[in-house]
């Protein structure tokens, strides 16, 4: 297969995977670049998905495996984009493959090495709530199923090398630079979660029982840091009252982002249902501003949460969260905008801040490498939001998913297919009339 008929997809989340599968299915060679040791992205971190309440990893894992097995897709995990030159139909791309120190072809992912590793550090995949070893697999369903050595934290004690029966570990491995020739590039780098510690009145980072929504996803996930038991982070007690606060840092002109993150209303409802499924005795409150249930089946989902599952919706943005230092329980002060009364909700065991989902910090650097423009917020800018919704200002480079505007999973998937189609078009044109 000619190199000109290959595509680089940046970002191994659901959008990147979908674009890769679409392109691979058409017979193009795809290089799927992922920064972390495993593909999967944000969706892999979620416990369930709205509005169908599917187990997230259950519907994602088959796609991950498909990417891994696909004859036309080559995974470049634990890698970074370094340089791009050339133009549509003929990009020259330099990629740095960080030293994983484990041979992918030999490692069986048995995990014996991790059992022996003496160093423990917070697991990024669990939003730092759980621990992992210096040699690790970020999650049980990781693809490729291969351990990775975190060189920053590795003590080089070489215990892992001794216990590895496959002889896959080589701590002296050096990073490698790979040069590729691709016809088009699809960017699907996703989002970061805004760190709400800047919003002092909510005490995130100070109060142990205040979590962000992504942290909470890991917290209640069966493969998460506490095995999916619904407990309070401060003392492990079973919570009786859980509160969600919407628009933390989103729709804000001061902190976070001015735009609506577009998924929080729905995932908060989903997480509320997860809680009620775990333990029907837990009272769940959602403090919202405007319930943006705009998609197919969304309003019905919210109605069901309210009417059948007893989730309490209050229209207000609380002013302050106060912690009782002895019990670590929280009190929430809010203005009930329906009755115009200032109220306080006490004995709250857990507060989940639905923190803004913002463009990735790394976007600027990445855009610089590719010569692509970002918009005022740091999202990848598209040429025309209505008529060319996935084209960037550089011909042959396309952007899809949350990295170019807030959206949910189905929209990201649809857009990924669109980007794949546009990328295919680019390559088809440059290679003449051969057909896919």
């Amino acid at each position, binding site marked *: 297969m000619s190199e000109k008929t290959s595509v680089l997809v940046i970002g191994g989340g659901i959008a990147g995977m979908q674009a890769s599968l679409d392109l691979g299915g058409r017979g193009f060679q795809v290089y799927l670049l992922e920064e972390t040791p495993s593909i999967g992205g944000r969706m892999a971190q979620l416990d369930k998905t709205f509005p169908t309440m599917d187990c997230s990893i259950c519907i994602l894992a088959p796609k991950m495996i498909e990417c891994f097995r696909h004859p036309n897709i080559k995974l470049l995990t634990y890698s970074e984009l370094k340089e791009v030159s050339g133009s549509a139909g003929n990009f020259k791309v330099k990629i740095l493959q960080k030293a994983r120190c484990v041979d992918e072809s030999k490692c069986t992912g048995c995990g014996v090495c991790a059992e022996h590793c003496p160093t423990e550090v917070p697991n990024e995949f669990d939003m730092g709530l759980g621990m992992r070893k210096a040699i690790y697999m970020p999650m049980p369903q990781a693809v490729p199923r291969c351990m990775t050595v975190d060189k920053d934290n590795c003590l080089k004690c070489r215990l892992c090398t001794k216990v590895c029966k496959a002889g896959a570990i080589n701590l002296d491995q050096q990073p490698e630079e790979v040069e590729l020739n691709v016809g088009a590039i699809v960017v699907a780098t996703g989002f970061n979660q805004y760190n709400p510690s800047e919003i002092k009145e909510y005490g995130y980072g100070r109060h142990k029982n205040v979590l962000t929504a992504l942290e909470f996803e890991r917290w209640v996930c069966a493969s998460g840091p506490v095995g999916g038991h619904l407990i309070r982070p401060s003392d492990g007690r079973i919570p009786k009252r859980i509160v969600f606060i919407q628009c933390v840092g989103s729709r804000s002109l001061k902190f976070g982002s001015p735009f609506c993150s577009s998924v929080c209303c729905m995932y908060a409802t989903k997480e509320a249902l997860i809680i009620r499924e775990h333990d029907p005795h837990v009272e769940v409150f959602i403090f919202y501003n405007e319930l943006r249930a705009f998609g197919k089946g969304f309003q019905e989902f919210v109605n069901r949460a309210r009417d059948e599952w007893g989730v309490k919706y209050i229209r*207000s943005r609380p002013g*302050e969260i106060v912690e009782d230092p002895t019990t670590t329980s929280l009190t929430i002060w809010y203005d009930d905008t329906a009755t115009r009364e*200032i109220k306080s909700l006490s004995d709250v065991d857990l507060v989940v801040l639905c923190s803004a989902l913002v463009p990735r910090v790394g976007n600027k650097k990445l855009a610089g490498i590719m010569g692509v423009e970002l918009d005022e917020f740091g999202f990848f800018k598209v040429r025309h939001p209505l008529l060319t919704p996935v084209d960037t200002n550089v011909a042959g480079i396309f952007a899809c998913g949350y990295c170019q505007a807030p959206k949910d999973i189905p929209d990201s998937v649809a857009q990924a297919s669109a980007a794949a189609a546009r990328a295919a078009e680019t390559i088809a044109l440059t290679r003449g009339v051969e057909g896919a």
Partner: protein
Amino acid sequence: MSEPKIVGFLCNWCGYAGADLAGTSRLSYPTNIRIIRVMCSGRVEPAFILEALERGADGVLVAGCHPGDCHYRFGNQYAEKRVEKLTKILDLLGVGSDRLRLEWISAAEGEKFASVIKDFTEKLRMAGPTPLKIQNKAQPARPTKNESIHAILKRTKALYCQECGKCSSSCPITRIYPVASPRLAVEKALMGLEQSVLVDKGLWSCLTCYLCRQRCPVDIEYDEFIRTCRAKATAQGVTGDCAHEGTLLAISRIMANPKVKQNRLGWVPKKAKIAKKGEILYFVGCLPYFDVVFDDIGVKNIEIAQGMIKILNEAEISPVLLENEKCCGHDLSFAGDLETLRELAKMNMAAIKKSGVSKVVTTCPECYRTLKLDYPELVRGPHPEVLHASEFLAELIKEEKIKFPGKFDKKVSYQDPCRLGRHMGVYEPPREVMTSIPGLELVEMKRNRENALCCGVSAWMSCGRHSKQIQIERLTEAKKTAADLLITACPKCQIHLNCAMSEKLPVKSEQIEIETCDLSLLVARAMNLMPTPT
């Protein structure tokens, strides 16, 4: 020469009866007096006297019963204390204490009344007309900006309001007094109910403490919204209930009179080195006045200025002090008088320019905010760099220009003043200053920095039940830290908190009583420049 005018506040039982006797006895006395009968001389607020002077009286007479004869037991004693304070104030203002007289005149002393009036008129004739008399100018001052409510909403970004209620659930006042709510005020204005906003009592309860703005996701400028709405309301003749009946605002207003030549540098320590021209100006603010007004609640405000001068001298700085420094205008502006703020700004900036300084240091965060934020809007530049004492002291400590001789073993907590903290974002310099004092331990209150609770009063408006409740809350919080001292970086926080402690409140005194001290004074004490009370 025009005849002097005297306003006489005469008590119903003695002074007024005495005047009556003088009349029925057909005694002759000058016709310069205009009599206002009050039930007791104790009813005469200092603000009444100042207002009489402001409105053109050349002298004010307060007459009551002889000591021991008061028909309400102690009314005349209160009057004596007040007049004594006000005499000092008039001296400071350069208006002259001889324009105010307190006399004990019984119902039987018609002759004494006549002779007092004769004598007072004579003296006032010698002194000449009051410098305060304002020609062709209405009082109180009207705002010049006749901004529409929609324009105010636009300028203060209130059009972005999402009506989420974060402001109102943060507001320390709304929690106690739900009628006064930042959200409701903005919401009403958005609905076009302008009058409803302007006549609302809640408008005057706001502390403009910035907590709502700090937390507002769309950064609505509530402080500015409230200030402009107050100016609009004042223009319509609606005002709030001023604390001390507006005495302190009247003092500021009097300072804005260009004819007034104050006599305000009497507090400067004898050995202190000060200059008329130089690099650094110390803007003292209203401390000499506060020192007189609040001497009975245990705050010696002037020590802050004295300490500051000594610290500066120790760092080999001879600061410039303005002989006729005027009030910065902060309180007047937040009470809705934007016009006088403008006048004061012009005069202060002219004096500062004349002194040729490049830096202005203030010990009061309100002066700091006003000079740094408001003056550049009102007066054309160039403007000097404005620093709060905490910033300047932190600099001096870093440069090792001031040193602490020994250990200062105290446990302190710190009250973030809203003007310094949330308004201007100065949180760390005061803490840096405190922690650089050897031996000193700083324990934070539960609510600190951005989340700090206000001291309960602002701009001498609406001191009442809500203020006291907030003060009790704050002092209890301070007490819980088990600190020996509560440090403030604002003379007014100190006044308001001490005021609460000196009153009869529905809490046990040991629950709220804590010694307070200003940050600059603390530094002066730690440097052994000012005595530490035992």
